[in-house]
């Protein structure tokens, strides 16, 4: 078990499993977030319901943080190994067309997401949803208020859209990559999986990014 975990393939499989779990979390998170389209009450009730689970939700948060850190730690180990494996690079030539944009951008989109997750936690998760940030026109609107105030700032909207584009690129490579890392490669199934990977990546990314844009255009400016 230990030799598997520390081998090149084992480390990749840990990255793949943790990544897959993070994708499942993203889908659940997106489902919750989309309640914003049903108005202040829906999103606030959702938030209160989640918090009412108390210890259970704390454990879930702890588990999620652990998965996130495992994903980063094992990726870091893999990247360090890879840098050591080619101390001197090449100078000549054009890139291979086989290497997709999403694949080439993985280290950058990953880094953007790490920074994004920290800022995102401070924006909403760790922010006081009954504090001054939650007040819109003198009225305490809870989490909904926090969202409306945050996305009144166009730079904040832009940052969220950039980060969600990073999510999209990251997922387009990641989903099909998980299959390959666990040994699923089939002449008929793999091209379909690559298409599913692309569609799912774009769908999750666009759905998330639609929220700050919608709030900025139709809600924040209206207040």
């Amino acid at each position, binding site marked *: 078990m230990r030799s*598997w975990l520390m*081998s090149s393939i084992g480390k990749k499989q840990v990255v793949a499993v943790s990544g897959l779990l993070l994708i499942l979390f993203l889908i659940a998170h997106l489902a919750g977030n989309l309640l914003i389209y049903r108005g202040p009450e829906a999103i606030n009730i959702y938030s209160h319901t989640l918090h009412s689970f108390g210890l259970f939700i704390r454990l879930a948060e702890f588990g999620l943080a652990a998965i996130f850190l495992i994903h980063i730690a094992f990726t870091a180990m893999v990247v360090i190994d890879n840098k050591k494996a*080619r101390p001197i690079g090449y100078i000549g030539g054009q890139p*291979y067309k086989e290497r997709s944009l999403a694949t080439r951008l993985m280290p950058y989109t990953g880094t953007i997401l790490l920074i994004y997750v920290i800022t995102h936690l401070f924006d909403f998760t760790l922010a006081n949803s009954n504090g001054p940030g939650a007040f819109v026109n003198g009225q305490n609107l809870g989490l909904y208020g926090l969202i409306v105030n945050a996305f009144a700032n166009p730079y904040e909207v832009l940052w969220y859209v950039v980060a969600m584009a990073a999510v999209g690129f990251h997922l387009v490579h990641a989903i099909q*990559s998980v299959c390959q*890392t666990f040994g699923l*490669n089939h002449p008929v199934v793999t091209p379909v999986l690559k298409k599913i990977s692309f569609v799912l990546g774009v769908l999750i990314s666009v759905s998330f990014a639609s929220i700050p844009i919608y709030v900025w255009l139709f809600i924040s400016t209206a207040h």
Partner: protein
Amino acid sequence: MKETLNLTLKVWRQKNANTPGKFETYEANNIDVHASFLEMLDVVNEGLALKGIDPISFDHDCREGICGACGAVVNGKPHGHLPKTTLCQLHMRHFKDNDVIVIEPFRSQGLPIVKDLMVDRSAFDRVIAAGGYVSVRTGSAQDANNLPVSKEDSDLAMDAAQCIGCAACVAACPNAAAMLFVSAKFSHLSLLPQGQVESKRRVKRMVYQMDKEGFGNCSNEYLCEAACPKGISVSNIARMNRAYFKSGV
């Protein structure tokens, strides 16, 4: 079409493994378009020798595209830009007059440079020695034919067995990973009944040795498949990943 070419070569020169290397520029004039890339280097070397300059060292043997000895990175691509072609089968008609050609050795921690464009590929031998063999008695031809092998498995095994161990996959991989080579050697044995007995032990040992040699980790970019002169499929890597997961957990 012009029958000869004048080219500028930027070639990596390195005296030995312990001396730092650098690029040198040479003119290659009146190169026959029907010459192979290695023959072009032969012509350049003759000129260098006449000037008293140490000729460019490069690996080569059969010059028929089947032995796996030759290989260098030409304009950023192992074995040059032509798909499914070894460097000895890349002909100068695929270049244009006055082209600048950058020639570099395969670069990987696992393939140390011996001199100029020559690399030491004995890491591959050690991976094979770790598990790339069958120790059960497989019998003579008649006995072997008594073992039924499906057409599909036989084809896949033969496809994997086409690997000539040239290391272009390592050179092309952004992480200098040797996964395509190791998985091809693993697959061609493990797909056949004679090789299945030791499959679990084989994958563990070969991957262990691969890691020990200092090759990188696969990040599913598939440049190995694109660079492979024999068109070895990355589905072999998936097969090895699957076997490794089953053997380790």
